[in-house]
């Protein structure tokens, strides 16, 4: 997918430049983009450092376990009849995801998916879990806030509330549609 995308973008740009006679400009654009990326990454290092640092304090304080406890009951209702072990991996994945701790979330999510799978056909529980997972339930969109900080926004946190509301809407829509499709099948 990305191979096609990159090839198309760059190949298209180079061909278009040759046709319109902007060969020089296109290569300096390429270099300027690379330089911009390095500058952004340096800015991100600083703001990611702060966010991940704070998040790490929070997770060391037991935030994941705290969320885990509160998510268990609602998830049990949504996923239906699943084993306790699978459920605990699901809640661990989703709590870590909510806090933006990708490193902790992925292994738990993979374990959960393995345990929920029912042969080669996705079970209802697996569908629900992956839809919730893929609809993103981040409480703090730290990447976006970090980028806004790195780009010099006056109020980098302004995105948090609209982001939170839209991610709730997105997850809710996913859950409802998943339930509906489940019944229809």
């Amino acid at each position, binding site marked *: *997918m*990305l191979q096609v*995308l990159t090839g198309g*973008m760059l190949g*298209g*740009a180079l061909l278009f*430049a040759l046709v319109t006679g*902007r060969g020089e*400009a*296109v290569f*300096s*654009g*390429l*270099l300027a*983009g690379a330089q911009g*990326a*390095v500058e952004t*990454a340096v800015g*991100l*290092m600083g703001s990611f450092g702060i966010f*991940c*640092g*704070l*998040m790490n*304090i929070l997770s*060391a*304080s*037991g935030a994941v376990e705290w969320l885990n406890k509160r998510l268990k009951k609602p998830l049990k209702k949504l996923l239906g009849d699943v084993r306790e072990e699978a459920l605990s991996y699901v809640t661990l994945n989703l709590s870590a995801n909510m806090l933006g701790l990708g490193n902790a979330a992925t292994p738990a999510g993979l374990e959960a*998916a393995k345990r929920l*799978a029912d042969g*080669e*056909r*996705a079970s209802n529980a697996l*569908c629900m879990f*992956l*839809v919730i*997972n*893929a*609809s993103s339930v981040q409480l703090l*969109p730290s990447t*976006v806030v970090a*980028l806004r900080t790195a780009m*010099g926004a*006056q109020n*980098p946190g302004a*995105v*948090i509330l*609209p*982001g939170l*509301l*839209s*991610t709730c*809407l*997105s*997850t809710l*829509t*996913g859950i409802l*549609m*998943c339930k509906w*499709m489940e019944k229809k099948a």
Partner: protein
Amino acid sequence: MILCCFALFCLLAGAWKRVPVYDRFVEGAREGIQTAVRILPALLVMLSCIKAMEESGLTAALCGFLQPLTDKMGVPEDLVPLMVLRPLSGSASLAMLKEVMETHGPDSRIALLAGAMMGSSETVFYTLSVYLASAGVKKGRHILPCALTACLAGYVGAFLFCP
């Protein structure tokens, strides 16, 4: 304001649970810096391609082509690439988000919209393919349509909730 409260909350939670705050802060910061370094190569390729497209005039040509369509839907055309790329690739959409912030300023409404869209959705295709492959599932049933609808709902939410 929110961020200040968040930072204070983290510190208080750490202090209350007797967490070695300095050590955990440094440990997390190290991870954050590594993340920034890890995404740099992909970000570099994406941003270079985007800039090359702009310089060649291809972007302007494509936008002119798409404009009647985006005008009809009422979506700012600068957001279209972000909305399309978001489910496909994290670094490509991050690069697009940066472009939007650069052209319109990070405090503009359109940058806020783009940020809310980015924060409310996930790299759906990538995430699903990884999870389904590791679980050995071949028939995903209604997972993809539901996940994409959820992503779209996040975009609509961004338009609704951005002041």
